[in-house]
């Protein structure tokens, strides 16, 4: 099994696999986000206290949960790249970082836009908001470390160490609302118990979370393909590919 998995570390095979997967991820992401967003914004009932303002949850929660998922994925890829010295894994980590940063940014912006009318402030330095901001800075750190070295093997090592160290922040974000008193509410979607949200609001939210996950995958695959081509531009198969594409 490991041997079979290992064969995908080869750039050419990884490129071909991601090209096959890309359309699936893209179309499914589009379908899920379209259904979830239209259902959530137009058909889901309004909330008993917040009225229609709560609908930002259909963007905010998927973006926030994917910002953390993306970070774990990026750190795992860095970990594999560092221990087994698989370059493809380093390229995966480098491809995820900007997507995760954008997800974090969306979560922060939508949260602020909701916080102004509901809480009465754009921003408050409570544990949840601050740790999510730290997550954005971690992403920016990983991106800039990877970009600032000419030698990409060295760059991946430097960025990888930061990515792995930053994992500590993920449980802090997740449990900040339970460990400390904060202005941010505790999570609505619960895995073990019943969620504290009426089901006709919950389903579109879950659909959008899956959709954002697929979108994260699709953009990562797209960036991963570009990263493979950029790092292997001297290889013969890339040159052949370029000639075929150029002839079209």
């Amino acid at each position, binding site marked *: 099994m490991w041997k079979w998995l290992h064969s995908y570390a080869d750039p050419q095979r990884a490129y071909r696999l991601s090209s096959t997967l890309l359309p699936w991820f893209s179309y499914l992401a589009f379908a899920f986000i379209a259904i979830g967003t239209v259902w959530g914004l137009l058909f889901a009932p309004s909330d008993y206290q*917040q009225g229609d303002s709560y609908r930002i949850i259909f963007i905010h929660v998927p973006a926030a949960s994917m910002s953390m998922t993306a970070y774990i994925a990026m750190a795992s890829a860095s970990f594999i790249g560092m221990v087994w010295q698989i370059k493809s894994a380093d390229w995966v980590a480098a491809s995820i970082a900007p997507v995760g940063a954008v997800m974090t940014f969306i979560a922060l912006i939508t949260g602020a836009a909701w916080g102004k009318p509901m809480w009465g402030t754009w921003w408050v330095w409570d544990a949840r908001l601050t740790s999510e901001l730290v997550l954005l800075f971690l992403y920016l750190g990983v991106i800039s470390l990877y970009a600032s070295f000419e030698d990409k093997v060295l760059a991946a090592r430097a960025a990888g160490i930061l990515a792995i*160290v930053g994992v*500590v922040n993920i449980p802090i974000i997740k449990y900040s609302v339970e460990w*400390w*008193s904060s202005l941010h509410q505790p999570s609505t979607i619960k895995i073990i118990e019943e969620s504290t949200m009426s089901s006709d609001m919950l389903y579109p939210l879950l659909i959008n979370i899956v959709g954002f996950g697929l979108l994260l995958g699709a953009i990562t695959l797209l960036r991963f393909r570009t990263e493979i081509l950029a790092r292997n531009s001297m290889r013969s198969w890339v040159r052949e590919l370029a000639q075929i594409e150029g002839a079209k």
Partner: protein
Amino acid sequence: MNSRRKKRLTLVVALIVGVTAVASLLLYALNSNMNLFFTPTEILQGKKDTGIKPDIGQRIRVGGMVTMGSMSRDPESLYVEFVIHDGSGGEIIVTYDDLLPDLFREGQGIVAQGILISPNRIEATEVLAKHDENYMPPEVAEAMGENYKKLDYSGEQLSQQ
């Protein structure tokens, strides 16, 4: 697994364990400072673990539930006065002279920032509404007996802003 990989694995795992230990010790040490606000009981009796009580004249945040029926408003201005309480029975009077957020109502959790002017009275400069994790349509809320009343401001009160 060859020995070089094993060495790298040990190094990376040691790094993760080390950083996690440092972070948890740091958070444990800072635990009481990580809280956004005092609860009313903590203002009256001091923090549970350290016994630290805020001084009069100090600028603090207090968080709790607005006591039902405690709110009184000046009909001429935006000035309001209400009591907030917590589960342990502490009560603090909050005064405020500005627009309250949309979610503010009696029975709702709030966080107020202001100056402690006497042991149980805070002159707030900012009142934030805290939202809970429950979401439901109005019909369901009605069936569950949750009352929902929004604050109304008269045109005159708003024009004073």
